[in-house]
């Protein structure tokens, strides 16, 4: 609460919140929302109407139907989804939570090491990791799948035994963790490197080792950055199709919800109108995550620690 009060007392506040700025910001926000609203409106119209008239006719000629939502949640009439999309929604959650936690922790450790435990070549390594962002994950699919199904060998010597995790949740968590690391390390390094030097040095002088500094100073102070990255990692994993389809399968046991939704369009794409409702069924949980993580973007975590 005290930080809130501080913010309100801040004289800088009025200066940017002029009427003009408010109008500009809300105009942009409006423009940003219109296309999404079009999809939302379309999700309540049947296929014939979507095809025959623009979605804005919903205001003058509302013929609302829940049939698209029905198709998404319970499956189309002839298919045999006993529990509807619920098992797939569960799978999405089961896939996403570890696939966010693992890379965030591993990347925070690496970022701290690269920023504060300097060694010969640590900068070069950092830039190399940054550059790895450009490796298209499409190119990693086959080698990684080979590793999971066959292990790694040099000649006849086995370096890594076959992991046998393709088709299991672990087989989806691991690739997501790998692919997230370059960006996670890059973003978190930027933040962790800018932590006040005095704070760290004081801790080292007090005899704290790197692990203690990491746990007691770096982690708590990096919460906003970790929260920001977690939101995006959550979204990427949540909306991912490629990794899930490659390393899992489209079966009810492991497939996430978008694999299911993508298949609702039908073999000849005749059910594409269900995508309108599908987009809003899947967006709910990411928005909850966004709201709940947003409160970690608090002001003043560092206040007082800087001279």
């Amino acid at each position, binding site marked *: 609460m005290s930080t809130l009060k501080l913010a309100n007392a801040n004289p800088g506040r009025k200066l940017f919140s002029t009427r003009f700025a408010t109008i500009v910001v809300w105009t942009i926000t409006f423009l940003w929302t219109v296309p999404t609203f079009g999809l939302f409106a379309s999700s309540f119209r049947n296929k014939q109407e979507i095809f025959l008239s623009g979605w804005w006719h919903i205001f003058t000629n509302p013929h609302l139907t829940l049939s698209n939502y029905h198709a998404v949640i319970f499956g189309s009439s002839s298919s045999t989804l006993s529990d509807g999309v619920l098992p797939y929604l569960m799978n999405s959650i089961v896939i996403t939570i570890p696939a966010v936690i693992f890379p965030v922790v591993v990347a925070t450790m690496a970022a701290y090491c690269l920023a504060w435990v300097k060694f010969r070549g640590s900068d070069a390594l950092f830039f190399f990791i940054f550059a790895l962002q450009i490796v298209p994950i499409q190119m990693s*699919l086959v*080698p990684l799948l080979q590793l999971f199904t066959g292990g790694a060998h040099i000649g006849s010597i086995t370096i890594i035994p076959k992991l046998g995790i393709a088709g299991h949740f672990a087989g989806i968590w691991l690739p997501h963790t790998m692919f997230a690391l370059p960006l996670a390390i890059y973003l978190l390094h930027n933040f962790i490197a800018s932590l006040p030097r005095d704070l760290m040095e004081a801790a080292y002088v007090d005899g704290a080792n790197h692990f203690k500094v990491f746990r007691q100073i770096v982690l708590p102070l990096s919460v906003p950055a970790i929260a920001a990255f977690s939101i995006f990692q959550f979204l990427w994993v949540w909306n991912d199709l490629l990794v899930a389809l490659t390393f899992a399968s489209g*079966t009810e046991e492991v497939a996430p919800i978008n694999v299911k939704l993508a298949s609702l*369009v039908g073999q000849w794409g005749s059910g594409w109108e269900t995508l309108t409702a599908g987009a809003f069924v899947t967006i709910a949980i990411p928005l909850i995550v966004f709201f709940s993580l947003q409160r970690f973007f608090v002001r003043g975590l560092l206040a007082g620690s800087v001279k």
Partner: protein
Amino acid sequence: MSISKKGLLATVGVASLSLLATFVTTVAPADAAINCNKIIGPGYAQLKGKTVTMFTSILDPELSKYQKALASFTTCTGIKVKMEGSNQFEALLPVRVKGGNAPDIAIIPQPGLLAQMVATGKAVPAPAQTLKNVNKYWSPGWKGYGSVNGKFYASPNSANMKSLVWYSPKQFAKAGYTVPTTWTGMMALADKMAAAKQTAFCGGIGSGGATGWPATDWLEEVVVRQFGGQVYADWISHKIKFSDPKILAAMKTVEGWMLNSKYVGDVKAIATTTFQAAGLGIPAGSCMMLQQASFYAAQYPAGTDVSKNGDVWAFYLPGINTSVKTPVEGGGEFFAAFSKRPEVQELQNYLSTPQWAINRIATAGSGGGWLSANSGVPLSAYKNPLDQLSAKYLADKNSTFVFDASDAMPAAVGAGTEWTQLTSWFADGKSSADVAKAIDDSWPAQ
């Protein structure tokens, strides 16, 4: 996280017990009545507890019909079949096969992709009984599309009939039009429609990353109609190039048909209209005819009367050159196996029999939508009139049947430059000579 692990496990235990109970009560009585010899045919091994995985581009609701149709096979042999459908099938199958995670059986729609899979060394040739069935029930042409370098790998699954023109019988009746039976008759009808300020032909070749494929069908239909099956086959193998005068002549015919603004209105708009949306205006008469395959029926919303005198129906795309007997173009899928396990081979054998096709057609019901080119299937097995119409042409021994050429050409052309160049033909007004040259230049060197 307030649930203790103990409590969690207890819930799970109770739940699975009750699941077991329902399973026993509902399934047991149904089995007893099945006469396996009659339903799936004789000679299958009992392999209880074995499972075969299948990967396919077929999606629900069609996919669940496959599972329903395979239920009797599971009851009779004990072999379970686990199917997975994905609209990313073409991209995923090579990744999974190369990555060592191949399905037992893949249902492959393109002979070109089948050849790719054989090239990985992971595909397994068809077992002897499957080969015997295919020799008996399919034409050499179909067997050929399931073979690579003379070796037979994959028996055909379903077939679709591409040589159809969708139209509205009600609109035709209103305007006093009759269904044409010759190419010139069709063009004369289109002239009449143009004179009445109607859009004679609908068209749309948009399909995301596969934009252009309907245009390849149009060209293929004309090539086989003007020059027959042999030229068509030589065209697939590139003995006849795209820049050959014959193919250029066929392109000229297409230019007078689907690239003719008199008939289609805005030619360029065809490039941005999705193939799904192309013919939706037919019942209302906003355009009159659409050349599209039998599966297009699925695009019409529920409640559309698809029948001989209804909102929409289809007629056979007429021939051009009378010396080419009943040209028919079709597509289909093939069962390629990646395992030699006995349960996989038993299933392959079953999938090549007429019994399988008849069981599969039965699950489609009156809605239909599933055709087989298996000659052991009587026409009377089809309950849907459109399927009967299509099956009649597919089963016709005297017809000139050709498989979708772009699916049989190398992927660099059939899923590459042919799509993009024909799209450019429509969108940018690129000349047919330039289009042909660009495609020929991209043909992979052997």
